[in-house]
């Protein structure tokens, strides 16, 4: 019996008059790796950011596991979460990896990984440190543990950022274009780490432009167009002529 890890129902998001998401229904079950594709401006990053409430949806439902994030409207008519504390609790279970890494630049790699488990979860330092070292080893940058982010290559920074989000033992990992800011020769090392996470059976939602990753690693591909899901399905179907005509044009090697 597969359990849903994330459910979106009628998700809408507008910035001013500009509607970026116009009604998204999406289910991601535990252990699924969902690649989210779409041309720029299709709303894929916004959708991902709505899941951990970095953007507040204008309407619709966001479910993380069996918890729904309740929304209300403030005096100015903007929507906001009813319970900010609950949003923080939910974020502890949803890891996020950003396009521009966003490591904390005043902390070393090891400190970056240890920060949230110690100060958000209140776990004992020695235990967290041991685990953090193991995570850095796993993503292949144990030797860089005392370096500052500015002293690392982009690929190393992104792997450190992945270790940082793993340190929270998240139920779901969100990747927001994790390789788009990298030099081509550094993309591979990050994708390898992501592939190994997928092999562990982690639940992942990946906004990406890496067709290879979408085709080979993900269990499902979702194609967004103008704020709506244009088509979705198993990569084997979509990349062999299934899916919409628009997707075929999008995925065709140019």
């Amino acid at each position, binding site marked *: 019996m597969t359990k849903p890890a994330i459910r979106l129902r009628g998700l809408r998001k507008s910035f001013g008059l500009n509607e970026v998401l116009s009604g998204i229904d999406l289910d991601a079950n535990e252990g699924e790796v969902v690649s989210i594709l779409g041309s720029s401006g299709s709303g894929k990053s916004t959708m991902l950011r709505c899941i*951990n409430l*970095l953007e507040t949806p204008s309407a619709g439902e966001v479910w993380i596991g069996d918890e729904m994030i309740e929304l209300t409207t403030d005096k100015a008519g903007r929507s906001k979460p009813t319970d900010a*504390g609950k949003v*923080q*609790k939910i*974020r*502890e279970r*949803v*890891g*996020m990896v*950003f396009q*521009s*890494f*966003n*490591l*904390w*630049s*005043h*902390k070393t790699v090891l400190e970056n990984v240890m*920060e*949230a488990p110690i*100060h*958000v*979860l209140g776990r004992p330092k020695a235990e967290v440190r041991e685990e953090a070292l193991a995570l850095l080893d796993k993503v292949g940058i144990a030797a860089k543990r*005392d*370096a*500052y*982010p*500015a*002293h690392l290559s982009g690929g190393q920074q992104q792997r450190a*950022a992945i270790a*940082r*989000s793993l340190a*929270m033992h998240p139920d779901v990992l969100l990747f927001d274009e994790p390789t788009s800011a990298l030099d081509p020769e550094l993309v591979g090392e990050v994708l390898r780490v992501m592939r190994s996470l997928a092999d562990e059976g982690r639940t992942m939602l990946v906004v990406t432009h890496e067709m290879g990753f979408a085709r080979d690693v993900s269990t499902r591909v979702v194609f967004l167009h103008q704020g709506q899901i244009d088509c979705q399905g198993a990569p084997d179907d979509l990349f062999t002529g299934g899916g919409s005509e628009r997707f075929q044009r999008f995925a065709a090697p140019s």
Partner: protein
Amino acid sequence: MDFQFFGETILILSAGIPLTLTLASLSVFIGIFIAIGIASARLWGPVWMQKIARFYLFVFRGTPLLVQIFIIYYGLGQFEAIRDSAAWIVLREPFWCAVLALALNTGAYGSEIVRGGLLSVPQGQIEAARACGMSPRLGFMRIILPQAVRQALPAYGNELILLCKATSLASIITLMEITGLAAKLISETYRVIEVFAAAGLIYLAINFILTRIVSFTDYRLTAHLRPASEVLLEIDENLTGANP
């Protein structure tokens, strides 16, 4: 120039150093909280708070410190309500009036420096803090403030020096710090050059030490901003105790 007298003067004026340093450090300590408060209000407060913060800045940056000291020391005592209130315990003392004026003043200037520091923290890093479940308060304490402090420190060092020198205005309201003692000595001896030269020398020495402390602190706090080669060299030294 009478060098023997000059030497004696330095000794006499040195008695004022503790008061100068107390005035400076107390007002810096209070001022830094004012600065952070005003800067936060301007950046994240509701509109009415931003307005108050801007008005505060307008008033305290726009008027001379000397005038502020006069108003607080001579002016406030004229109101019966203030003389009858608990605040009078503080406001009747020239020492506390000086501290108050200096703190309010440096708080205003400092808030602009702090605001620049707070703004320098990349939005992405703040989002990363939110994304791993930090409350706004925790994110501020752990991610924003430490980086803002590092960014603001060089400019704040400037403000510390200015404040250190501004304590000399406290002599106008009877405080016998370095300048106060100097003025007294001149009125007794009429030897302006030696006395003020000695006073200047003492301020120079204090500020020399102060700038050393600031740049040392700055160096220790900004390892992440220096080229990797330098930092790695340091780590090696820490490990082996030898410079490779």
